[in-house]
Structures are given as C-alpha cells and as structure tokens.
C-alpha cells in the first residue's frame, strides 16, 4: 500500500516531465503537419445551436473546407444560423500561417487526456486575433481544444473529439463556444400575445454565451471542392 502511494505520484511526475520535455515548437509543428494532410474536404453534419434568444432546430449542414483556411457551412434545408467565426471550427484556423510566437504554457487536461498548452501570439500588431491557446495531445499530435481571443468578436472556444478521421486531424464532433451580443427587438413591431409566461433569471445570465455543436457523419477528403461553394 505504502509502495503504491509513493509510486503513483512518482509515475505522474515522470509522465508530466516527459511531456514537458517535448519541445512545444516541435509539437505545434507536428499538429500543423497532421492538419496539412488535408487539402480540402466536404463533410455532412448535424448542427445544434444553443443560444438563449435563439430557438432553432438541429440543422443538417454541409461543411466545406479548402486549404489554407477557406471554410463554409451550408444548411442542407431551411434557414440556418451559422455562428460567425465558425471558420475556426477548423482546428487549423488557430495554426494558420507562421506569423506567431509560441509560448509553452505547461500542461493541462482536456477530459481525461493530459495535454500540452501552447499560447500563440501573433507577430502582426494589426492582427484581428489577439491570442490563441491550443491544447495539443502530445501522443497523437491532435489539437483537442483551442481558445482564440479576437479584437472585435470576443473569444471563441473549440473542443474537438476525434475518432474515425483522427489520422487526418478531422474531428467527429466539434463544440464551438462564442460570445453573443444582446438581442433586443425594436419596440412596438411585434404586437405579441401575452400568454402570461415569464423569463427566468438564469436565462438572462446565460444570454451572452452561445454554443454550437456539430456532429460529423462522414468526410470526403482531398477529392476537390469547387471555389463556387465559398462565394
């Protein structure tokens, strides 16, 4: 028992130490190289949007990507609300280009996976992105989570789950969190039916944070995507 209680922390320290030992620049380069395997893709998915003021159904969407950073989400049917900045749903969005300084921010956990944290500071002072933080699994070189802070559009957060297409660094599920602005209808235009229902305080507090969840069903990788799609 005593031996176990000594060994476990020791093992943890050793693993953490090994993780730290891996050069963060190399790790980011590995993650980028993995993303580089994909020139374009077309994927089908189901998008669930969760924003307090928006009561919209789950949408069947098609996601198109073309390297280096062109991305389009289209609803297959009906009206869709696609979060702006959804371009960063592509994990490569955070690693696009080389114009940033990489800072090692240690280790963290995403779910049960121990990850390395890299902070990317853009070199261009006029860049819309202020700071990107990526959480990379050192074993698979996959970005499991990223957080991008922008000047104008607040902070986007991305969490990805990989399975079938991990080889191409393409997620099976993406959870995209973003900031939303207050929504107020102009007064006197709706003439609403007052059915006596009220808004709860909890709803009001949630109002400024939005979440979109895309579950991908299949990818068509490197088969070419027409430029027309992105217009």
């Amino acid at each position: 028992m005593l031996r176990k209680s000594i060994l476990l922390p020791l093992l943890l320290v050793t693993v953490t130490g090994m993780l730290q030992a891996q050069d963060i620049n190399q790790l980011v380069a590995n993650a980028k190289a993995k993303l580089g395997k994909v020139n374009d893709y077309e994927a089908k998915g189901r998008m669930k949007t969760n924003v307090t003021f928006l009561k919209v159904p789950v949408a069947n969407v098609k996601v198109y990507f073309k390297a280096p950073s062109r991305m389009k989400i289209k609803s297959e049917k009906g009206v869709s609300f696609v979060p702006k900045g959804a371009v960063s749903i592509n994990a490569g969005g955070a690693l696009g280009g080389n114009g940033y300084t990489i800072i090692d921010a240690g280790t963290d956990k995403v779910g049960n996976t121990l990850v390395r944290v890299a902070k990317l500071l853009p070199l261009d002072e006029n860049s819309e992105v202020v700071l990107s933080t990526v959480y990379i699994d050192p074993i698979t070189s996959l970005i499991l989570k990223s957080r991008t802070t922008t000047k104008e559009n607040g902070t986007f957060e991305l969490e990805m789950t990989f399975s079938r297409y991990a080889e191409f660094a393409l997620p099976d599920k993406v959870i995209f969190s973003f900031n939303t602005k207050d929504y107020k209808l102009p007064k006197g235009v709706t003439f609403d039916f007052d059915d006596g229902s009220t808004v709860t305080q909890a709803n009001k507090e949630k109002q400024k944070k939005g979440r979109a969840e895309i579950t991908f069903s299949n990818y068509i990788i490197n088969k070419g995507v027409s430029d027309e799609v992105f217009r």
Partner: protein
Amino acid sequence: MFNLLQIELYKISKRPRTYIAFAAITAIVVIFQLAFKADGKSYMDLMLQSVQDSFDIDKSKAINGYFMCYIILNTLLIQVPILVALIAGDAISGEANMGTLRLLLTKPVSRTKLILVKFAASVIYTIMLLVWMAVMALFLSLLIFGADDMLIFRVKGDESLILQITSDDIMWRYFAAFGYAAVALTVIAALAMLLSVFAENSIGPIIATVCIVIVCTVVSNINVPIIDKHVKPWLFTSYLVGWKGFFYIGTTADGEPIKGSLENWPAIRNSLYILAAHILVLLGSTVVIFRRKDILS
C-alpha cells in the same frame, strides 16, 4: 331558417360596402408583397440587428411565403375589426334606416330567429373575409416567395426571442390561427350587432364599434401593472392577438423547438373561452334587447 340566411347573405352580397373590405385587404396584401419583394432584406436587417454580428443568416430564405403571411396578419388583424364592423354594424340599423325593419318583423319569424340569422350572416361574411386573407396573404405569398422555414420574432417579458419553425410544421398552425381569428372577429361582429340594435342608421354603430375597439386596444397595450392585473384580463382586445400563440412553438430545455408543439396551449384555450363568453353575452344581450324593443321605423 336556411332560407332566411340565404336572404341575409344575398342582401350582404348586394351591398357595395361588402366589397370595400375585400378590396382593402387585397390592396394592403399586394402593397406588402411588392414592398417585401423589392426590399424585404431591409426589414430583415431591422429585425435581426445584432444577431447578424454573431451569425451568418441566409436572409433570402427567411423571407418566404409563410413569413410574409405572418407579417401581413400581424398588421391586418388589427385593422380587420373595422371591416367586420362595416357589415355587422349595419345588420339591424341598416334595415331601420331603410324603413324595412318593421316590414320584416311582420313576417312570421321570431325576433330571436331574425337576430340569430343576421348574426350568422355576419359570421359567414367574417369567415369569407378570413378565407380571402388566407388566399391573398398565405397562398399568394407562397406562390411569390416560395416556402421555407419560418422565423418568428417575439418579445417575451423583457426578452426578445427568435423562434424557427420548420416548413413542414407550419400549415396546421395557420389553419388553427385563422380559426382562432374567426372566433376573435366574431366578438367584433357580435358587438357591432348589439350596437346596431340601438341605432337607426349604420354610421353610429360602425363608428361606435371602431371606437370601442380602439380604446380597448390602447388600454390592452398600456404596460402598467395595475391595468395588467385588473383591467386587461376583462378586455376582449387582449385576446385578439391570441392567434399568435399557435406560432409560439414549445422548446426543450436546450432551446430546441419541438415539432408540432405549442408553448402555452392552456393560455390559447382560455383566450378562446373568454372570447366565446364575450360572444354569448353580447349576442344574448342583443336578442334580449331586440325582443323588448319597440320598433318604430
């Protein structure tokens, strides 16, 4: 009874003012459709405002036949009571004005039956008006703008909401909404008919009906707690917009709309009961007063 109803409907169909309402509805709907065809995007921009900063929305899809009909009804159903009053307010007073009421009552028809037949004729006229609205605002809009999911912009408490109803879940809501509107407008017909009993010309009851509707609508829209609690529940105008309840779709805890659901059916049902009670009271009063009335013209 059926013969009497046929005669009343024939009388209504021969009055030029009957067609004023149909012409007015046609004009308003066509103007709306032309305006939205030309620049519906600006309206969408106004309604979506800050949402556009956070989301990409295909506005051309959002401006469709279903949405157009909702916008048109939103405006028209506030004005239609005036059009209903044009006919119902004339039902008894018009006969009195022409001097045919006394003659009519010499026939072997009870006064109660006469009132009920005239009321039924006014209700049929109201329904025809709504059917025409449905043809123009819904079916013509679908023809011009096509069908797609529908966005409902709503203020709930002090919160603004956007609800999305999928295209395969809309039509039944419109049928229900038009049915509700028929009940709501029947209240106006009953009110106009009651006032019509007291007058000897049509203008008085028509104007009085319109004035009552305007005053009650203004009071219904005053947001003062004491009025909200003690006055609004008694005003029929508070329930005229209840048809919108059919478009307030129920949602899951995550905010996902539940197909085929209503957010608050009990509120709609209670509104219908209250409107039905108004009809019964107004029509009952009309019958009682008319039966006791000394007909001199």
